[in-house]
C-alpha cells in the first residue's frame, strides 16, 4: 500500500532547482554551482558529501534562508511546493518546508517544550484551540508528549532534537529538511531519531531531505542518495546503485562497511546478488547462502 502512495504522488516535484548558483556575500567563489534537481513528493533523500561541499547551503535554499536571510548572489531558480523561493518570504515557505538544524541547543528558544513546539504556529497567528490541537498531535507523533512541560535545556540531546522535529512538524509541512541532526547525539539517540524520521516519511508521506555523513546508519531508509562535492551534485540515484559505483569510492565518502564487505566478496567471486544496505540484510543473505 505504501508503495502505491509513492507511485501516484511521484508525478509532482515538491522541490525543483534549476541551474542554481549561489555566492555568499563577501565570498569569492560560489558555494553551490549549477545545481539542478527534482525531488518528488514522498521521497526520502539522503544528501551527503565532504565538509564544505555545499550541502548546508543547498538546504538553506529550500526554505528561503537563501536568499532572504543570507542575501548574497543567487542565480537560477528554485521552486518549492510550486512557489519561487526568491519571491516568497521565509515565513510563507515555512508552512511548506521545515528545517531542523545540527545543534539542538540553538534552535529551541522557549522555556517549555510545548511552547517551543507552538512557536511557529503562534507566529503564523493560528487560533489558540488549533495550536493546542496541532501541538499535542506533533508531540504525540514524536513521542515526547510526556515532556511537554519540561524546559528544553534540561532534556537530553536526543529529546531536544525530537522537540525541534515536533516544532517543524506542528506547522504540517510537506517537506522536512534535517541538516546533520544527530552529530551531537550518542549512537542509540541517533538511531531513534533516524527511525522517527523514517516513520514520518512512511506514515505521513512527508518528503525528507536528510543531510548526513554516516551512511551506515541511514542508507537503508533512503530511496535516493545525492552526493555533492565542491558545490556541485556529482552523483544522484538509488542507494544500492550509488554506493557500489566506482565514482563514490574516489570521493572520500564513508562507504558503509556492509557495502565494503559485499564488494570484497564480489571481487573474490562470491556474489550476494543485490547490494545490501544494513547489517540485517547482509546477514540474511549470508545465512541463506551459508546456513546449513
Amino acid at each position, binding site marked *: 500500500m505504501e508503495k502505491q502512495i509513492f507511485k501516484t504522488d511521484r508525478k509532482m516535484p515538491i522541490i525543483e532547482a534549476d541551474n542554481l548558483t549561489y555566492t555568499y556575500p563577501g565570498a569569492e567563489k560560489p558555494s553551490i554551482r549549477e545545481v539542478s534537481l527534482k525531488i518528488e513528493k514522498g521521497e526520502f533523500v539522503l544528501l551527503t558529501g565532504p565538509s564544505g561541499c555545499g550541502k548546508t547551503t543547498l538546504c538553506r535554499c529550500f*526554505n528561503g*534562508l537563501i536568499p*532572504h*536571510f543570507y542575501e548574497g548572489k543567487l542565480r537560477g531558480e528554485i521552486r518549492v511546493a510550486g512557489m519561487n523561493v526568491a519571491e516568497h*518570504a*521565509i*515565513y*510563507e515557505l*515555512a*508552512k511548506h518546508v*521545515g*528545517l531542523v*538544524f545540527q*545543534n539542538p*541547543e*540553538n*534552535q529551541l*528558544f*522557549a*522555556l*517549555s517544550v*510545548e*511552547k517551543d513546539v*507552538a*512557536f*511557529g*504556529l*503562534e*507566529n*503564523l*497567528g*493560528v*487560533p*489558540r484551540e488549533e*495550536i*493546542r490541537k496541532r*501541538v499535542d498531535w506533533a508531540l504525540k507523533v514524536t513521542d515526547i508528549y510526556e515532556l511537554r*512541560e*519540561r*524546559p*528544553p*535545556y534540561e532534556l537530553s540531546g536526543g529529546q531536544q532534537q525530537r522537540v525541534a522535529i515536533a*516544532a*517543524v512538524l506542528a*506547522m504540517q509541512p510537506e517537506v522536512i529538511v534535517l541538516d546533520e541532526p544527530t552529530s551531537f547525539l550518542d549512537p542509540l539517540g541517533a538511531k531513534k531519531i533516524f527511525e522517527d524520521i523514517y516513520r514520518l516519511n512512511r506514515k505521513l508521506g512527508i518528503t525528507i531531505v536528510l543531510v548526513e555523513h554516516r551512511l551506515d546508519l541511514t542508507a537503508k531508509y533512503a530511496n535516493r542518495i545525492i552526493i555533492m562535492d565542491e558545490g556541485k551534485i556529482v552523483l544522484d540515484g538509488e542507494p544500492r546503485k550509488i554506493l557500489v559505483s566506482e565514482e563514490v569510492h574516489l570521493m572520500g565518502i564513508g562507504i558503509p562497511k556492509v557495502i565494503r564487505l559485499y564488494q570484497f566478496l564480489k571481487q573474490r567471486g562470491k556474489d550476494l546478488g543485490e547490494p545490501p544496505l544494513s547489517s540485517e540484510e547482509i546477514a540474511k543473505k549470508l545465512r541463506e547462502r551459508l546456513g546449513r
Partner: protein
Amino acid sequence: MSMFEGLKFRKISSPIHSLDPRVKFFYVIAMFAAAVMYMEIIPLIALFLIQIPLIIAAKVTRQWIKSMRGATYLAAIIFFTNLLFSYFYPTGESFSYIVEHATAMTLRFVVLVESFSVFFLTTSPDHLGLALENSHVPYEFCFAFTTAVRFVPVLAEEAQTIMDAQKARGLELEKGNFLKRVKNYIPILIPLIVNAIRRSLELAEAMESRAWGATKNRTNLYELKLHRGDYVLTALTVLLIVLAVYVRLYIPIPAVSEILG
C-alpha cells in the same frame, strides 16, 4: 551569586505558582511601597512575617532560605554602612537608636529580597513573558526577555568550558599584577564573544525558519485568565496597602528601644 541561585525558578505546582504573574507583580510592588513607608523595626518585622505563609504554600522554603542566605552579605554591608554613616555624621541620637535605625534599613532590604524571591521562585519566565505580552509590551521585547533567561545557564556553562580549555593550555588567571590579570581574561572573552555571535546567528536562522514575523496578530498557546486565587491575592494586597497607609498616618509606632526601656 548564591542570592541569584535562590531566585532560579523550578517548575512545581502550588497555589502560588498558578497565580497570575501580573497579580504577583502587583503584590511585589505593594510590598515594596509598604517597606519604603516605614523606618521602624516593628512594622518591617510584620511585613517580613506575613510573607512566610506564602512561601510555605508555594513549597519553596528551601530555595527561599538559600536566597536569603545569599543576601546576608549585602544585608551586612547595608547594616554597617548605615552604622558608619551615623557615626561620621552624628545627629545627636543615642547609640541604641542608631543601631535600631541600621537594623530597620537592613530589614527593609530583607523584605524586598523576600518578596522578589517569592515572585521569581514561583513565576515561570514563560508566564512572565506572557504577562509582559498581555501588558502590551511589544512581542520582540518579551521574546528577548524569555530567550535571555533561557540562555543564561547555557552561556554560563560555555564560559566555564572555555575557561577550562584555556587552563588546559597553561593559562593561569590569577598570575601577575592587576594589568596582567585583566589581560589574562582575553583568551576567555574572545571565544565567548565569537561563540555568542555564532550562536545568535544560528538562533536567528532557526527563528526565521519557524515563521518569525509572519503576522502582526501573533497568537499565543497560553492565555492568562484571572482565577479566584488571583482575586483573593489582589484583595489582600489592596488591604495591606490601605492598612499600611492608615498605620503610617494615624498610629504612632514605638521604637524597640523605647519598649525595652
